């Protein structure tokens, strides 16, 4: 199919297949924005409907949320560096920065799991009120995306060890970098509109 192949530019854009794959992923990300929009809307509508469970202002703590935010922000940065190294043709640089990204992502997940367990001990669970259902669905869907992203990136790291940098592997790494940055975009909005506003109101 790939009748013509460009001789310059980033590897992932040189074939039409690569360009189309990346464009398709942007369309997927547009759909993901809308998916999260519905969860944000549900959360916003159910804000304050805590029934007999604790209210968010009592449970949300700035410290742990800021640590999670900085972990994810830094992982987004190192993911960008990984793609930068990939475009310089360095498999080693790509692997190192991507591994750091994954370690930071795992740290984020660890804190999120700790946070959820902590809230559950204090009486805020999925079942305890409409508000907490919406909260755990929104934050949990993001956490699930992070988990899937980590598994996906590990598979790609195995693949690049076997196949090296080609049009196909660099397209795959570029797409997971889009996915990872996108998760950070969603987290910024969770951090702002769930945690910060939850502590202000």
């Amino acid at each position, binding site marked *: 199919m790939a009748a013509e192949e460009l001789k310059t*530019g*980033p590897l992932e*854009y040189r074939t*039409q297949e690569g*360009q189309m794959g*990346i*464009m398709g992923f*942007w*369309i997927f*990300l*547009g*759909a*993901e*924005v*809308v998916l*999260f*929009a*519905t969860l*944000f*809307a*549900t959360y*916003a*509508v159910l*804000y*304050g*409907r*805590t*029934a*007999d469970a604790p*209210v968010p202002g009592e449970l949300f703590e*700035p410290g742990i949320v*800021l640590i999670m*935010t*900085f972990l994810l*922000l*830094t992982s*987004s*940065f190192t*993911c*960008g*560096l990984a793609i*930068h190294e990939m*475009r*310089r043709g360095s498999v080693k640089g790509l692997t190192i920065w991507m591994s750091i990204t994954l370690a930071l992502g795992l740290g984020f997940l660890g804190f999120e799991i700790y946070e959820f367990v902590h809230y559950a001990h204090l009486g805020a669970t999925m079942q305890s*009120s409409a508000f907490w259902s919406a909260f755990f669905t929104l934050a949990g869907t993001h956490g699930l995306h992070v988990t899937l992203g980590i598994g996906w990136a590990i598979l790609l790291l195995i693949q690049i060890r076997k196949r090296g940098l080609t049009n196909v592997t660099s397209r795959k790494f570029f797409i997971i*970098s*889009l996915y990872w*940055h*996108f998760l950070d*975009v969603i987290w*910024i*909005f969770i*951090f*702002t*509109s769930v945690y*910060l*506003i939850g*502590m*202000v*109101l």
Partner: protein
Amino acid sequence: MASSNKRVPTNHVIGFVLSLAMTLVAAWAAIGSDLPVSWVIIGIMILALLQAGVQLFMFMHVTEASSGNGHVPWNMMFHGFALAGIIVAGSLFTMSFGFDHDGHGGGGGDHQQHEEQQDHSGH
């Protein structure tokens, strides 16, 4: 593209520093400042949008000519976020606007809701 041979990606470093700064300002405004609540909420939402812009333009190469995808990535993100705004604002307008009996706006009516919830749970 032009930067792909440089050792240090200046764009990424600037984007990272900007994100950290905006996160800290937003956290300070919400936790440490005495500004009016509505100002804080508007301010931190604007900061969140700016941070999303940093991610899209400095990390995700949303307007990269060599992609051959023209304006598609930007269109996808712009329309996705426009829809998100409509969904969230529209849901709040139809479901919450004017709902609270005490008139304090969303989330102000905790005590009355406690009573309502208990009434419903009796069914």
